[in-house]
């Protein structure tokens, strides 16, 4: 496999509609059962228009984008900023590109910038992962 280069794009990941059923499943499995993700009324009380997808579910999909990249080995670090709410039922598109390739502690690593966007094109999360490159 050729070494990834700066500017290389990861295969785009299209996450199917994140339904309320999926949010309930994620709430139970993750331990984050804040009602703003499950109940429109609670979400409106919190200042939102209705129930929103957990930021950490969006981040998990961004993580899969990186770890499923054929060049990826072990994750060194992963961070995300949540920049807009993702309404329940949204589809999300995850994309990433290589920002740098460096040797870190003796191993080649790629720094990958990732973004998640909802159906209307608004970016809901931006992040960065540092991942070892598979031998």
């Amino acid at each position: 496999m050729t070494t990834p280069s700066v500017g290389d794009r990861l295969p785009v990941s299209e996450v199917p509609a994140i339904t309320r059923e999926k949010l309930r499943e994620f709430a139970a499995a993750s331990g984050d059962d804040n009602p703003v993700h499950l109940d429109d009324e609670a979400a409106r009380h919190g200042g939102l228009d209705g129930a929103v997808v957990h930021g950490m579910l969006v981040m998990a999909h961004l993580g899969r984008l990186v770890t499923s990249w054929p060049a990826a080995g072990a994750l060194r670090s992963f961070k995300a900023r949540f920049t807009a709410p993702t309404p329940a039922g949204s589809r999300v598109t995850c994309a990433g590109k290589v920002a740098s390739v460096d040797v870190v502690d003796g191993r080649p690593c790629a720094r990958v910038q990732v973004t998640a966007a909802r159906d209307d094109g608004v970016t809901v999360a931006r992040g960065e992962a540092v991942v070892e490159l598979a031998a």
Partner: protein
Amino acid sequence: MIAAEFVGKRLDPVVLTVPRERVIAFARAIGEDRAVHVDFDAARAAGYPDVVLPPTMLFGLELEARGEKLLVDMGLDPLRVLHAEQSFTYHRDAHAGEELRFESVVADVYRRMGGRLEFIVQDTAVHRGGEHLVDLRQVLVIEEKEPA
């Protein structure tokens, strides 16, 4: 406004063990189907003691164990608190069945946008016995209902 004395507050450690079924359920909920996360035999064959926690799973486990006590103690309505940022720094993998210890501190509290937004930064170190597994940093944000 969050009282300044919360900055530097150490939270009581959380100690928990993640059942294998829970790891698999989390993996399924995020669409993760790599065998080391969902198949015990495959994880063993790959050299792991049990299924490997997906990289973002530690966040919710601590939240579930702690609940919203800190936010309530701070005088906040948990429904109005949003997750602004999250980071993980990985040192070692965590697996099902291991006793994990979460040690957390309120690293910072600060205001932005003319005081309209208030941010809470919590740093967490996760250990297994003497081994340092992962560091987490979460940033929460709450927007004032009425301008001060």
